[in-house]
């Protein structure tokens, strides 16, 4: 009996103590990030030497809450980096947090609500799911807390709750990939006939937030447009969602070009690579596009066995990716991928905070559209690219 009580008390004590250290960490300035997984240490290591110096810069003393989709992919590390810069410049508090996993929708909603209850001067939000945050945004509106969406826009947001959206135009970004892939494979497409079809693959993470959907669709639409330009008919096969979602596609039989869309059952590299493999191991495949970091890495992983990727359409399959991360950057440097589209997470993070600050200063703010930049071996070092190519 005693044991039982003891055990339960013990666990209670544990909770309290856990909480305690959390609280301890919490009153300290930017340790908000520390809680959300020692982000600061990382980014500190990762550079930002000027951070220390400029931290005495302006001091507006605002405190913001930032909710990201998750800290899973290094993409968000870059975003945090941007936030760090903004913090340093403006001397504001930003407490960043995010679910363990881009699909823990429920958690993110809870976090957003928590953030609102902390009554910050503003909230920067990258919504995992655009629908489920709507109610919370309404709460924010009531509480009079300005919200800036970054990375992902929330279309159905209640009027006036979201002051500005700092996000990539994903459809455009997807199109960018298509535009850059097409010239390389143009010859092959021209050569294609109904009997000798060519196949273009796309691996798309299961789309929770619209942005990846739009991206995938953007790529498909652009590619179709370009192919039609070269008067070739295009068919879309694979995941029914895109097959049904696409206009201007024809039936597989009378098409010269086939766009095959693979969607892994879950957002894991292994499943992504299986999908990529499936497409790449077909003989008529001439190009493949991984529409976000995970799936792009899926393509690379698949290639480790297939060894089919090449920058020369005659030698093998043309590969392109999205976002950055070490594996992709290496793949590009090693002529496996011809290039990749990067958004500017760093800028997004930065802008998001800046915008919030402006709002607090009562300035007018408007949406800041971010472009997707195509980067390849040649321009990886450019100033407008390099900072966005996170590891």
């Amino acid at each position: 009996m005693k044991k039982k009580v003891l055990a339960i008390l013990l666990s209670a004590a544990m909770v309290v103590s856990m909480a305690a250290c959390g609280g301890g960490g919490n009153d300290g300035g930017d340790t908000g990030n520390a809680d959300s997984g020692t982000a600061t240490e990382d980014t500190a290591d990762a550079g930002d030497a000027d951070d220390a110096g400029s931290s005495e810069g302006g001091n507006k003393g605002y405190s913001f809450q930032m909710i990201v989709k998750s800290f899973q992919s290094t993409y968000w590390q870059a975003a945090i980096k941007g936030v760090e810069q903004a913090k340093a410049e403006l001397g504001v508090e930003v407490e960043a947090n995010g679910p363990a996993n881009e699909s823990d929708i429920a958690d993110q909603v809870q976090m957003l609500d928590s953030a609102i209850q902390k009554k910050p001067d503003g909230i920067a939000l990258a919504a995992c799911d655009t629908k489920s945050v709507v109610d919370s945004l309404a709460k924010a509106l009531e509480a009079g807390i300005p919200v800036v969406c970054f990375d992902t826009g929330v279309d159905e947001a209640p009027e006036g709750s979201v002051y500005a959206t700092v996000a990539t135009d994903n459809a455009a970004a997807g199109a960018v990939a298509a535009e850059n892939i097409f010239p390389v494979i143009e010859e092959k497409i021209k050569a294609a006939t109904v009997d000798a079809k060519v196949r273009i693959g796309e691996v798309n993470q299961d789309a929770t937030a619209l942005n990846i959907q739009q991206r995938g669709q953007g790529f498909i639409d652009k590619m179709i447009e370009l192919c039609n330009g070269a008067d070739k008919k295009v068919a879309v096969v694979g995941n029914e969602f895109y097959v049904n979602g696409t206009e201007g596609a024809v039936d597989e039989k009378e098409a010269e070009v086939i766009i095959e869309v693979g969607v892994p059952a879950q957002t894991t590299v292994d499943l992504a690579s299986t999908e990529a493999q499936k497409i790449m191991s077909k003989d008529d495949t001439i190009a493949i596009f991984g529409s976000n970091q995970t799936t792009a890495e899926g393509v690379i992983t698949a290639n480790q066995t297939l060894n089919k990727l090449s920058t020369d359409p005659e030698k093998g399959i043309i590969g392109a990716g999205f976002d950055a991360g070490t594996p992709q950057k290496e793949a590009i440097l090693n002529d496996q991928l011809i290039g990749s589209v990067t958004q500017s997470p760093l800028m997004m993070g930065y802008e998001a905070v800046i915008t919030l600050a402006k709002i607090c200063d009562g300035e007018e703010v408007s949406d800041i559209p971010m472009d997707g930049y195509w980067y390849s071996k040649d321009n990886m070092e450019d100033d407008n690219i390099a900072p966005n190519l996170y590891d």
Partner: protein
Amino acid sequence: MKVEKIKQNAFVKKVGFNRIVLIFVLLLMYLAFGALTGGSFFGFSRIMNTLNYVYFLGFLSLGVTFVIATGGIDFSIGPVMFCCSLVSGYCLTTYGVPMAPSLIMSILIGVLFGVFNGYLVAYWKVPPFIVSMASMNIAKGIAAVFTKTQSVSWPQSTTDDGWYRNFINMNGIPVGLFIFLGISVICAIVLNKTKWGRYILCLGSNEEAVRLSGVNVKKWKMLAYIICGTLVGVASIFFVAAYTTVQPGYGDQYNNEAIAGCVMGGTSMAGGLASISGTVIGVFIISLLQQGILALGFTKEYQYIITGLIVIAAVYSDVSARRRKN
């Protein structure tokens, strides 16, 4: 006989005592979090948030309590819950099935999985653990195939179909709480006052003896799984009511939390010993924990770790208590 008398009192105490300690822990945690988050934790809307989590988790826990009472286990509940709201939600959004039928459909799918699991466990004697593994995969698979691997968003409260969200919160009134407690009471009655519960508990404790008493154990065992399935269906409604969006391929983590809540409440994994009230309190503890951890700005990871440790503590106390008794 004197000896046994003592033992028995100890046992009675144990049952009662258990709850008291739990409630104590619950309050302790609440205060702790409150203190650490500078009061913001005591806000009304914070409570509502916590409840949002309590609802669906609660129904899952109630369901699995019945299964564990039979000495079985079901950790397909999380994915099955998602499967329910995905499939019915997809019908709602894509095939234009009206709201009411979709909700009923959610529950029916839950029941179907209950039947499936129950049948295999009771009539084919497949170990529950394996059945769970199987139906977990099947649930995920079906959901994904059906929705073409796209997430499904149920209507917002603002839309005409939004009324279903009043289940949890009708302009500020936590309706869900009443529904949840109501159903909990029903569950408690079923478990303790009816033939169903009596047989479920007994066969959890000694199936063969019950069978040789001329009871159709298979039927009652299956029933436990069906009850579980039904409640999972209900849970799925409360999940979408709280968070609108569900997506294929997930839901595993809720198994652990649901089972945790149930075990913490003093339901013994060995079967035959279950307590609805305990489960309810357990669920509140888990949800409060989840809420508190997030409020403190921790990420989910810490919640996983702490929940894990707490459950270990709870189970250990249960085990050692039973060892003492024998």
